[in-house]
């Protein structure tokens, strides 16, 4: 965990060797000033040993490497969504990514920090945001969400590594609060409109009609959706949350590369399965099938790609378990008893807020530590 968790401060391998610091006035003058005397010049050698705090071992992981790998892992879902939703999805994705990059660059310049557009994190944020939006979402709204995600989700906290909440979800939450109607207006995928694999009551389906998500159908009209379309993605919903299989391919790649902590998806999805399964056993009429709960909505996308965000998830194994279980419980509560059909976004954001506390509570005992005496 720790080697991936390296914050940008110690992670850069190509740190300029002659950078005495950002806190003080620019040291530009020092190189040009004539040397005061011979001796001081003699002491300077071009090749110096490096004095640095531990850990000294360096892996080949870096921020850009991880970010681009996650983007790669998202590609199956992206490609499938382009296939299903066509150009509208492509426009949304492109706008979100572009707006996120522009916002990142602008914040970097305004805050006079190092330009970090090329590390891939802004691209990833934009992409994730786009994947959580309905394909027909207005372009201006998408761009606004991406800007909010980068500026208020990440940069105001001090940039990548310092944010408390997942930036993409902050952007999505802002859009949800701003345009509650637009963001719940779903369009049906191309195939669904033709009626293949699709057994919802949309007989009058024409091209690009608006429909409801399986969760929405269940919550408000008590219409269930079969599991097969959920797996392959022939359902209404956000761009990226439709096909469970496409998301799982990328998710498993991340787990293998250890870019995502396996405990988070396992505990998150496991909790949802167990909790909703228990409810289902109590009353199958009233509560939905646990498999449906797991496959529908943005749970897979959230569990593999958003909850596992290195910055906003806990560092300790125990903390990670609590984090995942907490998200699962919050999600089921929102979906079943709450006013909204979907709760992945809020469950992740909610537990994100608790991460600093979890990190503190679950700090492992270091070697030789003596338990503090409780109550004198």
């Amino acid at each position, binding site marked *: 965990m720790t080697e991936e968790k390296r914050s940008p401060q110690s992670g850069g391998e190509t740190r300029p060797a002659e950078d005495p610091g950002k806190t003080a006035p620019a040291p530009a003058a020092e190189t040009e000033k004539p040397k005061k005397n011979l001796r001081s010049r003699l002491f300077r050698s071009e090749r110096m040993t490096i004095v640095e705090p531990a850990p000294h071992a360096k892996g080949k992981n870096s921020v850009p490497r991880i970010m681009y790998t996650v983007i790669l892992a998202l590609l199956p879902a992206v490609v499938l969504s382009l296939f299903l939703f066509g150009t509208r999805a492509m426009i949304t994705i492109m706008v979100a990514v572009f707006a996120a990059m522009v916002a990142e660059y602008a914040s970097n310049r305004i805050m006079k920090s190092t330009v970090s557009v090329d590390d891939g994190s802004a691209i990833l944020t934009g992409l994730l945001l786009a994947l959580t939006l309905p394909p027909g979402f*207005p372009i*201006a709204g998408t761009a*606004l969400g991406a800007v909010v995600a980068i500026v208020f989700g990440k940069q105001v906290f001090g940039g990548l590594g310092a944010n408390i909440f997942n930036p993409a979800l902050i952007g999505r939450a*802002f859009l949800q*609060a*701003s*345009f*509650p109607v637009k963001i719940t207006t779903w369009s049906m995928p191309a195939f669904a409109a033709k009626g293949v694999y699709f057994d919802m009551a949309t007989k009058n389906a024409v091209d690009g009609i608006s429909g409801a998500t399986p969760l929405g159908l269940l919550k408000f009209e008590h219409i269930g959706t079969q599991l097969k379309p959920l797996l392959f993605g022939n359902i209404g919903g956000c761009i990226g949350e439709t096909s469970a299989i496409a998301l799982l391919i990328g998710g498993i790649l991340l787990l293998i590369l250890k870019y995502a902590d396996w405990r988070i998806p396992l505990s998150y999805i496991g909790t949802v399965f167990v909790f909703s399964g228990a409810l289902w056993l109590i009353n199958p009429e009233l509560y939905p099938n646990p498999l449906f709960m797991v496959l529908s909505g943005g749970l897979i996308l959230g569990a593999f790609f958003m909850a596992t965000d290195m910055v906003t998830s806990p560092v300790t194994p125990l903390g990670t378990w609590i984090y995942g279980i907490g998200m699962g419980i919050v999600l089921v509560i929102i979906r079943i008893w709450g006013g909204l059909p979907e709760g992945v976004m809020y469950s992740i954001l909610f537990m994100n807020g608790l991460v600093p506390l979890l990190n503190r509570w679950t700090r492992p005992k270091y070697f030789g530590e003596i338990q503090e005496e409780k109550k004198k």
Partner: protein
Amino acid sequence: MKQKTAIQEFLKGLWDENPVLVSLLGLCPTLAVTVSAINGLAMGLAATFVLLCSAFLVSLLRKVIPNQVRIAAYIVIIATFVTIADRFLAAFTPDISKALGPFIPLIIVNCIILGRMEAFASKNGIGRSLLDALGMGAGFTLTLLVLSSIREILGSGTWFGLQLMWPFYAAWKVMVLPPGAFLTLGCMIAAANWINTRRRS
């Protein structure tokens, strides 16, 4: 501390010691009522009225009121004027009174007012206290007006009820919800701090 001139006494409330942006006082009404510009303006004016009247009375009675019961006396004075403001709003502008709801009576416990009484009016003459109260009230009103204007324009597309944005503008609903208040106020405070740092250096 150097004695300020009369004009400085007034101006300090507008920027240097702005009650909302610098002292961060009275945030409850600031965040809660600023969903529309008219609400913000009404709240600011009501608070200014209470501030002015109370400052006048408190500084007039500052030698009479014994130190031990000064807070009790100030609260009674403030509460009286708040009730006056509340009743008048309810009688003459019932719609605004309804929109501002419990926040007009809550001016009684607004830190700006009690704070200015305790910190300024109880130690200074009537003229100065009135100037100070006027400045603070103006600062409060202006800040609320700006905050509520931003929120109303972005959140409803209108300003004082007038359609301002182009017709197909999709209003950012979040701005008239509580998160929008925090977001806008945060940005305003950041901007004020930024300007101040730039001005100082």
